[in-house]
């Protein structure tokens, strides 16, 4: 066992990067659920975003264009979910599961000729010189732009939900869609927009895995991150900052246990591998002991009558 092989600064920096895909997917799903829609297709939208981003980045040579394509890819797939649940009034749980299966299949079809190719690299430290400051440099300034974008989306989501009329209307629609309709708000339109936002965020999260974390394309490479993001939203009591905390906690312990495995700690690998799930769930369950409750109309189909 050699714990000195673990560099704490690099570890923290790596934790933040490991958390980003979950964070992006979870914050998107949070907005969807606050609007009263339960979209279980996060995994499918992530993997679709991952493959769309990968293909476009390889063909254009630009990771930035790749990320934009990933967001569009995720959003387009979520549009299918929006059509099923908001127009055809299909059951949300079944539609979400179908979306995941469809996304997994579609992505492996699209990615067939891209296995084994290396994507263009994103600029590692776009913020430049500050990244060279000892200790805080690598932790705070040494990341790629997507990490900062993810944080920006969390802060933006929090501010919009709390301080703006748009956020208030979105929460109202999720809380009681009949009342929102009676007041004249367009429930279906607002929900469709929220679903599109969720799809775009999930797509970005997926592309972060295929373009930066791994970076290559393999089938099913999101490996359940979408499901973790879904669980995180619930355990975070539908609050943006708690989603951030949960994602960092989960990403952090994932990274830590990998390092411990590498250092040869005398704990069976299986226990280390399950530790991120257990710790994240325990912490968020303790946090969610307050009176927080799910949006009142979550998962219910809205049908305007008379």
């Amino acid at each position, binding site marked *: 066992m050699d714990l000195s092989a673990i560099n704490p600064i690099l570890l923290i920096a790596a934790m933040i990067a490991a958390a980003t895909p979950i964070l992006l997917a979870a914050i998107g799903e949070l907005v969807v659920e606050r609007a009263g829609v339960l979209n279980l297709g996060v995994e499918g939208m992530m993997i679709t975003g991952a493959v769309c981003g990968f293909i476009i980045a390889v063909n254009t040579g630009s990771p930035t264009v790749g990320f934009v394509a990933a967001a569009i890819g995720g959003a387009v797939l979520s549009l299918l979910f929006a059509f099923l649940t908001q127009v055809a009034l299909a059951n949300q749980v079944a539609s979400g599961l179908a979306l995941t299966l469809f996304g997994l299949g579609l992505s492996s079809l699209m990615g067939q000729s891209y296995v084994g190719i290396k994507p263009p690299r994103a600029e590692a430290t776009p913020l430049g010189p500050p990244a060279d400051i000892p200790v805080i440099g690598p932790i705070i300034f040494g990341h790629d732009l997507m990490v900062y974008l993810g944080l920006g989306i969390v802060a933006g989501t929090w501010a919009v939900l709390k301080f703006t009329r748009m956020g208030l209307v979105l929460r*109202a629609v999720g*809380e*009681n869609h009949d*009342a929102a309709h009676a*007041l*004249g708000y367009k429930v279906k339109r607002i929900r469709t927009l929220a679903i599109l936002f969720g799809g775009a965020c999930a797509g970005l999260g997926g592309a972060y895995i295929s373009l930066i974390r791994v970076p290559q394309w393999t089938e099913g490479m999101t490996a359940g991150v979408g499901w973790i993001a879904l669980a995180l939203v619930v355990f975070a009591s539908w609050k943006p900052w708690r989603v951030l905390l949960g994602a960092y906690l989960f990403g952090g312990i994932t990274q830590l246990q990998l390092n411990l495995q590498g250092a040869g700690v005398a704990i069976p690998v299986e226990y280390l591998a399950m530790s991120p799930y257990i710790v994240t769930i325990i912490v968020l369950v303790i946090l969610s002991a307050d009176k927080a409750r799910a949006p009142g109309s979550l998962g219910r189909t809205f049908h305007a009558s008379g």
Partner: protein
Amino acid sequence: MTPLLSLNGLTKAYPGVVANNDVSLSIAPGEIHALLGENGAGKSTLVKMIYGLVKPDAGQMQMNGGDFAPADPRAARAAGVGMVFQHFSLFDALSVAENIALGMETPPPMRTLAARIREVSETYGLPLSPDKVVGDLSAGERQRVEIIRCLLQDPKLLIMDEPTSVLTPQEVDILFETLRKLSVEGTAILYISHKLEEIRALCDAATILRGGKVVGTCVPRDTSAREMAEMMVGSTLATPKAAAHDAGEVLLSVTGLSAASPSAFGMSLRDISFDVRAGEVLGIGGVAGNGQDELLAVLSGELPCGVGMVQFKGRDLAKNGPEARRGLGVLAAPEERLGHAAAPNMSLTENAMLTGAAREGLVRRGMLNWAKTRDFAERIISGFDVRTPGPENAARSLSGGNLQKFVIGREVLQRPEVLVVNQPTWGVDAAAAAAIRQALLDLAADGSAVVAISQDLDELMEISDRFAALNEGRLSEPRATSGLDVEQIGLMLGGAHAMEVAHV
């Protein structure tokens, strides 16, 4: 004077039913105009058209002499129409100020809005704190939220849909005071209610709807409540009558009952005690949200309670769940029809099976006897005049009033020894309500004990032998109904809590 709003020949048809047929009426500025009619007479459809939620098939509306055809509620609000809904329009998890902001076109910043809410609530005598979460408010306070939401937009016409059904007599007085003040200031009010005495006290004119058509107009002050009721129903009304009977042995006895509410926005029960005897109707009044749902849940067996708190003929019921209690003869009909008393997507036959299985012998060795269940459902339908094509129709396809008749009938026909009902005639028209009350009285006359929980005080005065009030989860001492006046009842409703404090 040009009328503020005039409707000409409004017609709206839904598949299978004409909700409004050639309806015309006009309202002058400052007039308080009553809209009367039974359930399904087309009152809601009419006001929804004025509020822009529904578009008429034919006919015109004019406001101040100009054409008025709101495409959605926003357009209606912009034109000066405000509406206070009966249900479905507040958001429990949001604060008072947020709820109000949602009903406004261009709300000011939250701090300014909070100040204006305080200002308006003081001007009109409707105290309200803008920061409170709506889920924690009483029904009366919730209504104030809705009224203030409308008033902040300086409406020219205020539509009120059954505003007093959830208020105590004192709260009704405050509301009427506010409405008269608004009327003097020139705001017209379109007032929908079943309560004819209130309309006589408040309104300047009334339009009566039956089957989607205008069947008459009157000046409420010069018309008796009975005449108006008969115009609504189209026939003479039978008043429920109790047969003379003596109270028998104690069937249901509740002692020191305390139970925590299962819901975050619910009300816990605190130290409730009462007895009900065979042949007696105990009326329990109180404003919604003071523990009614919890009390019913404890008596029906859905909500567990401590040993010795609820006894039936001296036998402790703490270990008996709802099904076991039904077997013994303790039955209940909860308030929420869709989802609690009846499963919305199941047929009436299936719903009859759900509570009737044990007492009607509809199950033998785990096998369901559908033929017998269908007969049972048909008996309910014919016995309680439930209007539906047949027992195979889904519960959700029935109108609220019809489903209520079915739900009450289903329990009454099982010959219960104790029947607990919550809001037995909520949303039911006058004729059907009278039939349900008569059924409850007949049940008592046959020797059952009936506990009727209701917010409708007139109803409780009509059917109950003794009356008690629920307030903040506490029950006042039951008192004989004969000899109680409105003032005393009002004090019981609002004052039970204060007396409790005085004891401590």
